[in-house]
């Protein structure tokens, strides 16, 4: 058995497209720019990053759906380009969202079909499918058509489908996207149970709490490259020397945000809308008290609760991603 479940060295992927006939324009987008990664057997590994960071492309390179432009990857010791079938026998792939299932078939028919495709022996199929319905808590709804399923139920069915052939490595690409909090918690429980049985899981997400709760190690990917890698505790160090001020507000303008960003000692400032309110998060140097300056910049804005706290994993993540954004980024799209 290979020492590592997943190994990637210098993995790169460039998408090329052409538009127009008379004066064709060629575009190249470098989605992954040299990813090096090893994931041990039985590890639950998180790949975290903003939209367009290269998470899904990385997963698709590892699970054989895409061929790398450069670099190498191995799953359980098998090369993803040359030993595709060996790799596919050992992996499961689950992605988030509504698609990927046969809506007009029942959940049981979906699993029956994929069991055939993935080579689950006929005599085992019935038992395995029943086991998986139990695992993903869909027992009693097996014969319902998938088109009547909620998003959470679909997502659990996706997981059951991904596990039919008892894969050694499971790729979960944003499995909780669009799922309500209760269903997301159930999903997390299912994933944790899987990891406990020795399945290697590579999980991509942009939900920090999910990664923090589940993953032993996390890689933060941005702009197609891994920017930080470590345990959640290690990643938190990226926000060392900082403190965080959170202000509940109603009507912070872009100009005020820019003003706050420019205040002495302020490292990051962002606004997230939660219902009718906004939450302004300001990361600043630990030794500098920016609260008074921030509140002055918000003059005229109705304010709610103001809280000062220590940085969390999410703050560390924001710090890492923003650092990448701040650096001069190589042009993402170039005409060729």
């Amino acid at each position: 058995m290979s020492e590592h479940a997943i190994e990637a060295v210098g993995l790169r992927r460039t998408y090329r497209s052409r538009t127009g006939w008379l004066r064709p324009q060629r575009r190249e987008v470098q989605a992954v720019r040299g990813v090096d990664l090893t994931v041990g057997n039985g590890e639950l590994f998180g790949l975290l990053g903003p939209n367009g960071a290269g998470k899904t492309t990385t997963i698709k390179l590892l699970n054989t759906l895409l061929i790398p432009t450069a670099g190498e990857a191995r799953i359980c010791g098998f090369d993803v380009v040359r030993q595709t079938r060996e790799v596919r026998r050992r992996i499961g792939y689950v992605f988030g969202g509504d698609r990927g299932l046969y809506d007009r078939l029942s959940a049981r028919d979906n699993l029956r079909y994929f069991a055939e495709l993935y080579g689950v022996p006929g005599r085992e199929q019935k038992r395995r499918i029943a086991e998986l319905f139990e695992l993903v808590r869909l027992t009693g709804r097996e014969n319902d058509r998938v088109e009547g399923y909620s998003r959470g139920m679909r997502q659990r069915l996706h997981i059951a489908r991904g596990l039919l052939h008892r894969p050694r490595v499971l790729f979960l690409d944003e499995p909780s996207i669009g799922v309500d909090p209760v269903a997301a918690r159930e999903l997390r429980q299912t994933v944790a149970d899987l990891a406990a049985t020795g399945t290697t899981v590579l999980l991509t997400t942009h939900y920090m709490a999910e990664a923090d709760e589940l993953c032993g190690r996390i890689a933060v990917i941005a702009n197609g490259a891994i920017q930080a890698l470590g345990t959640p505790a290690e990643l938190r160090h990226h926000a060392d020397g900082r403190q965080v001020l959170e202000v509940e507000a109603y009507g912070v303008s872009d100009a005020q945000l820019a003003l706050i960003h420019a205040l002495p000692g302020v490292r990051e400032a962002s606004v997230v809308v939660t219902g009718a309110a906004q939450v302004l998060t300001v990361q600043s140097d630990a030794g500098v008290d920016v609260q008074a300056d921030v509140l002055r910049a918000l003059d005229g804005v109705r304010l709610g609760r103001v809280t000062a706290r220590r940085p969390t994993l999410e703050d560390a993540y924001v710090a890492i991603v923003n650092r990448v954004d701040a650096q001069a980024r190589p042009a993402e799209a170039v005409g060729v």
Partner: protein
Amino acid sequence: MIAVGALLHAKQLSRSPFEIATALIVPVVQATLAVYLFRAGGEPGRLLEAAVGAGLMGIWSSVLFGSGGAIQNQRWQGTLEMIMLAPRPPALVVLPITLATALTGTYAMLATLAWGRLLYGIPLTFADPLAFAVAVPGCIISLGMFGLLLASTFVLLRNANALTNTMEYPIWLVSGMLIPITALPGWTGPIGAVLPTTWGARAVREAATGSGPVWPSLGICLAISVACLALGALMMTHVERRARAAATLALA
């Protein structure tokens, strides 16, 4: 796996409201077209031949749009990546889909004959009912295998339906499904001769009207289709790899 896959895909296809509406309307249109064409030609005695020809057109349309559309539908549903990820030769993964489209096409044949009988009183007296009962499924399986060759090209094309639209009428014309091959320009002959649709249509027509021996035509139809299957399987392996390189398995 092929049988279970074909049955489940046929189940999924036959539950589509679009497919159901098409299946209800198209056979009536095709039966009407065939009947009036032959009546206008002063050959009312050949109405059964007309109805069978129209039914074959329905099967062909189902296979063509099914194979092209099936790959595109799998892409839209997000299932194309999931099925191509199976540890199986790509041809084995796609063949059940094309067989399912041929299977649902059987309905077109039956419905066209039924509408022909109900609306126009075409007598359903087949010259050789047993041969007809064998020739129709044989033709369907052949077209399913031919569909694999078509589908292999569609894996690469994100807008495969544009290609399918241009192939429907030329193929049923040169195959002589409705209009006799002898009425077409000579240069279409060699094209028709290499298409399994030509021999399948001929076998079914011969069984229905007794105009010739069924088995040689059906045999040639199956032989060409097996060759298409082998070629399609080779191409499928090649295009699957190209699709992974070009990133065309997913919609975006």
